[in-house]
């Protein structure tokens, strides 16, 4: 059973759980993936996001998420001004409709706090729930509802085994995992959803495994 607080709740800024609250969560997930507040964001809106963002405040909601606000933050309507104040430069683009793309989708191309660039595609799939479907060139599939660790590495035998055994020694249970790669022996990405938060020490150990480029720990993008 879902908690009764998701029926009488969540507390959120309106008007739409999918177009507003879900959009905040996409922004929050993207912020977590880039590892802090971006300095620049080019956001492309697709489908219903593209046609109704104005009345639903989807643009403000995405910016608010990038600024680290939660879906019930009353500063969301003021997000554009707050972004300008805190040095986040945002540009919106509206894409042509495509049958291949979920109607409530946004692509966020971000420049991170230390100049790194990342692109994140997320969809709002109803009731404020989201799905992150792409990080850079990698097809991914995670909801942000549990703790997760995102590991970028060079494809080679044994890396996944090393990561999972490290998690096992930390007593972290894996709930779901998806691995994808650009090509054999090329860049690869693992999204590991876990039942317990991954400690900073464990994350650091994973990032020091030979062949691993980065390991990012993502907190859940709360639904409460």
């Amino acid at each position, binding site marked *: *059973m879902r908690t009764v607080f998701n029926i009488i709740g969540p507390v959120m800024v309106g008007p739409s*759980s999918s177009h507003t609250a879900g959009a905040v969560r996409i922004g929050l997930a993207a912020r977590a993936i880039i590892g802090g507040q971006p300095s620049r964001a080019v956001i492309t809106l697709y489908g219903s996001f593209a046609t*109704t963002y*104005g*009345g*639903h405040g989807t643009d403000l909601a995405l910016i608010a998420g990038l600024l680290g606000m939660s879906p019930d933050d009353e500063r*969301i309507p003021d997000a554009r001004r707050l972004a300008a104040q805190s040095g986040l430069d945002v540009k919106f683009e*509206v894409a042509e409709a495509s049958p291949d793309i979920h109607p409530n989708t946004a692509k966020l191309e971000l420049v991170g706090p230390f100049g790194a660039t990342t692109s994140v595609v997320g969809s709002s799939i*109803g009731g404020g729930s989201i799905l992150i479907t792409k990080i850079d060139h990698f097809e991914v599939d995670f909801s942000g509802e549990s703790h997760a660790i995102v590991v970028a590495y060079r494809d080679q035998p044994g890396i996944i085994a090393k990561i999972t055994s490290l998690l096992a020694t930390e007593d972290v249970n894996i709930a779901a995992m998806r691995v994808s790669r650009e090509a054999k022996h090329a860049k690869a990405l693992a999204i590991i959803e876990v039942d317990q938060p991954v400690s900073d020490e464990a994350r650091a150990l994973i990032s020091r495994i030979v062949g691993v480029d980065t390991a990012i720990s993502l907190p859940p993008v709360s639904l409460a």
Partner: protein
Amino acid sequence: MAITTLAELVEEASSRGVSIGAIVREREAEQSGRPEDDLDADMRERLGVMRSAVDRGLAGVRSRSGLTGGDGPRMASARMNGETICGEPFDSALAYALAVAEVNASMGRIVAAPTAGSCGVLPGVLLSVGERLCVDDLALVEALFAAGGVGAVIERSSTLSGAAAGCQAECGSAAAMASAAAVQLAGGSPEACASAVAIAFKGLLGLVCDPVAGLVEVPCIKRNATSVAVALAAADMALAGIRSVIPADEVIEAMGSIGRALPPSLRETALGGLAVTPTGKKVASGISVLGHGNCGLDV
């Protein structure tokens, strides 16, 4: 144990001589491992958000599209001036529901109950009936748990999503939840609560979701208020001892099957119903120009 059917909730509440809300709170404590006092505190906070939204809406708000706003205060002032037919608590319920739904449309803070689009119904019914009966906040909190339990049953055996089953799943569910809460507040039996759920739902079965311009404004805001009317009517019938021939659990399942039979054009796509009336289309084209003009594509 998890909540399954309304019949099962009614049976346990009746046999133990407690309210449906008390059973739902107990189950939530069991499932989440949190003490009941904590749960009460969380629910009290939601009650506070509902009250703030009523106050803010009655003070007057405008939606971001500019299409709606000000009807909550309009209703409240008609009530104050004695210009209405029905009186209390009905007029307050309408004013509160409009106010909260307008706050939602203006990007204000609300409790999605069960959804953002139907967020006015529960506060409309609960707060107006609470004032009328002079109950304390603990009773309101327990009524919110009852409403939540009804919503949990609906979500389990049907759906709460307008995109899946039309407005009957959103405002219809909210009215069913609110009427059970009202009956509980008025001291009705658990069985009467279930009857209220069935009667309220039956009044709203088949209600489509056809938002003009795809926004949560027209007809959503006024549908929150008319759903309040159905909820209060169902609560009074149930308190009078009127029972639904079709049990609440079967009505809830019927809502799901009706929803699946609705064409996609009437399930939150803005491709049918009021959304494609001449005025609906005109408003939509005006909004998209306005929306882009107002927001701008660049910061």
